[in-house]
């Protein structure tokens, strides 16, 4: 079946611009996660959704970052006033159900470059 998809695969923007990154989770997966992977680093947790609500947003670096999941499926990560330090690969993962450690399935990521 279809895996987690992320669009766009690459995004180049200028400093100060606004960007949106989209994640389509596996159908039926109620849990959704965003991670950020900087060059030479492992993925770092940003935010976790259970259904439509953000159950844990403790990893968002500052208030320029925001994520939504209005219908409990597709999620959008929004970054305002982008900075060069935001350049990274943004990964989305989904898992079946909540309340337990189900396998997180990762998408291929969106590579964001801020010039």
């Amino acid at each position, binding site marked *: 079946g279809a895996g987690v998809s992320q669009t766009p695969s690459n995004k180049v923007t200028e400093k100060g611009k606004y960007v949106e990154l989209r994640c389509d989770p596996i159908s039926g997966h109620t849990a959704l996660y965003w991670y950020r992977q900087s060059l030479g680093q492992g993925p770092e947790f940003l935010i976790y959704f259970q259904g439509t609500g953000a159950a844990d947003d403790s990893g968002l670096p500052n208030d320029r970052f925001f994520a939504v999941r209005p219908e409990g499926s597709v999620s959008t990560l929004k970054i305002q006033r982008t900075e060069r330090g935001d350049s990274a690969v943004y990964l989305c993962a989904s898992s079946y159900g909540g309340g337990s450690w189900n396998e997180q*399935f990762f998408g291929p990521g969106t590579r964001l470059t801020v010039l």
Partner: protein
Amino acid sequence: AQSVTQPDIHITVSEGASLELRCNYSYGATPYLFWYVQSPGQGLQLLLKYFSGDTLVQGIKGFEAEFKRSQSSFNLRKPSVHWSDAAEYFCAVGARDSNYKLTFGKGTLLTVNP
């Protein structure tokens, strides 16, 4: 807070040789432990996980890992490496009260020589 250390940034092995990738974690209780593999252009794929019970766990693609509490380690092993195993490998830990978020190490890049 939990953390993961992967001491080897880059490892090179010959095809057919054995492999061991090191992972050390820091966490006050028994953690949930994972190994993921990331190939270029691919998403992270789960190789194996440890939650409890038998400390030697088997995964996909012929990989295994052993949880050693006394050493706070969860090393990944494979008896005979194939060229297709060339990729980046990430160890991750999950805390039991952490809303299922994973904390990853920095990864080990594996190169396989023919």
